């Protein structure tokens, strides 16, 4: 384990250096997300004021605001570029440069991406959590912060990131097989946006759909960590959803290994 870490730690470092080089990209990416966040806020505000009720599907307007901010934070934390990077490396053949090294292909990606994400995540998470708490406290008039809730949220986010990472790796291998990465990736992002509760909280869906979507792996990405933070899952329900998350993480981890074995035989590294 310690030796493994020593091998892959440099990839984190390489990832961090990459971000330092492409900081401007990241700033624009975040600005885009923040804008989407504001748009979402104004839409929901209109929905609530035209609905005439304080609570919709168990969400008050102040909880909705918290939901939007947490959605913004969570999606950033668990974001993974895997599908894109794998697809590109296969397409342009640079995957060969990973293959000639005695390291696990997926693991080098994972650690490189962690390096990409860690610094920005800390920079983002601390003020965002603070903002969420200020909103919650002022709108409800009482302090709702719970350290346990925060720790469980972090745990849930870590699992969600692993699900997303391995899911995207799998998706990259499949997109490579059907040779249609760009379109497939766009479609995937749209569908996941809906299935994971990014567009509307799953609680707003008809019961049967909600139940189905809650079981699918995509709810484990965004929705579960947010519900945990907001204290909507407690007791056995909490354990059930954490367990489901762990299940999906293992599922996609195993699937990515199997797909990798199939893909590597079909590689046709071009050029050079």
């Amino acid at each position, binding site marked *: 384990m310690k030796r493994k870490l020593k*091998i892959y730690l*440099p*990839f984190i470092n390489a990832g961090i*250096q990459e971000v330092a080089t492409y900081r401007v990209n990241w700033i624009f990416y975040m600005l885009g997300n923040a804008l989407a966040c504001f748009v979402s806020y104004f839409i929901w505000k209109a929905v609530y004021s035209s609905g005439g009720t304080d609570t919709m599907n168990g969400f008050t307007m102040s909880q909705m605001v918290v939901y939007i901010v947490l959605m913004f934070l969570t999606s950033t934390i668990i974001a993974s570029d895997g599908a894109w990077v794998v697809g590109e490396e296969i397409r342009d053949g640079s995957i060969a440069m990973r293959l*000639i090294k*005695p390291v696990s292909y997926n693991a080098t990606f994972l650690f490189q991406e962690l390096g990409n994400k860690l610094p920005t995540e800390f920079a983002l998470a601390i003020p965002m959590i603070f903002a969420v708490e200020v909103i919650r406290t002022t709108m409800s008039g009482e302090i709702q912060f719970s350290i346990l809730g925060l720790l469980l949220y972090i745990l849930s986010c870590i699992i969600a990131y692993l699900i997303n990472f391995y899911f995207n790796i799998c998706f990259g291998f499949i997109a490579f097989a059907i040779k249609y990465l760009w379109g497939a990736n766009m479609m995937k992002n749209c569908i996941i946006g809906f299935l994971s509760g990014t567009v509307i909280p799953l609680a707003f869906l008809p019961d049967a759909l909600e139940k189905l979507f809650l079981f699918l792996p995509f709810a484990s990405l965004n929705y579960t960590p947010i519900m945990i933070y907001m204290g909507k899952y407690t007791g056995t329900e909490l354990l059930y959803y954490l367990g489901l998350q762990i299940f999906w993480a293992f599922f996609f981890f195993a699937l990515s290994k199997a797909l990798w074995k199939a893909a590597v035989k079909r590689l046709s590294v071009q050029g050079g």
Partner: protein
Amino acid sequence: MIYVDKLRKEFKKTIKDPGLKGSIKSIFKPKTIKVIAVKDISFEVAEGEILGFIGPNGAGKSTVIKMLTGILTPTSGSCTINGKNPTENRRNYVREIGVVFGQRTQLWWDLPLRETYSVLKEIYEVPDDSYKKRMAFLNEVLDLDSFISSPVRTLSLGQRMRADIAASLLHSPKVLFLDEPTIGLDVVVKDNIRRAIEYINNQEKTTVILTTHDLEDIELLANRIVMIDKGTNVFDGSISELKTKYGQFRELYFETDSPNPVNILNYENHFNFKPDELNIKAEGKTVKLSFNSSIVPVSDMLSYTLGKINVSDISVKDADIEVIIRRMYKHGENL
């Protein structure tokens, strides 16, 4: 050390009819054709040997290297390196080899070069003291010091290639694969790299397989050559064998003031040369021709030429390997 047995690689290539209609059709019902990049090639390489792997563009050299290094899975046939099959246990196998692709880099684009080496040190589990010794050695051979602190993306092509070769040697591999290691480099860097390869081979008995289409690389480095063309093996042997086997060619240079000397001389008709027995290049006053001296002796060529036109300077020499190989490239299938 290296056994390659009837190695074959086929690619499927999608072809697309022209126009929008063709593009749409190719999404739903792609047409594929089979390209045989490597066609049942066999050869062996002994320990400590430098094998020059040559052939024209598209011959299949890189594809063979990719199969030998475990990047591509062969369609059929087998290769064994050091008793290991590259695709069977990739992570275990690649510990023992070093690989450089001239047209790609294995260095981390955004890291200072020095850090690439410390990453590789961890990956290959090189102990601290051997790492220090190794870096000093590589630095001496490849002269890395002047750019070791620069990020890789700022290196010149020559620096990058030296850095890449050093990276491939950090873990003292038993076999070194170099695919076009001198491509696009200037004479000084080429020379530095050749000497480095020779030195490593000499010092550590590293087996080297080197592909190139720069024949100077071959003449200066290789003990043996394997030449392939259109995916098949057309020659396997030492350079001197190549020269005696195909070396009856001689080159004749001369300078003349006569306008249009080639037409006046008309060697083809006079001596009845077949097309592949004679090759003429005329450029201004200089004429350079290579011909098969077993068809027409050198003395006959000389006396005929001197008798026909006014020549100011004339010389004859053995065809160098380049000429021989050019000829073989052209007629690969007949050999």
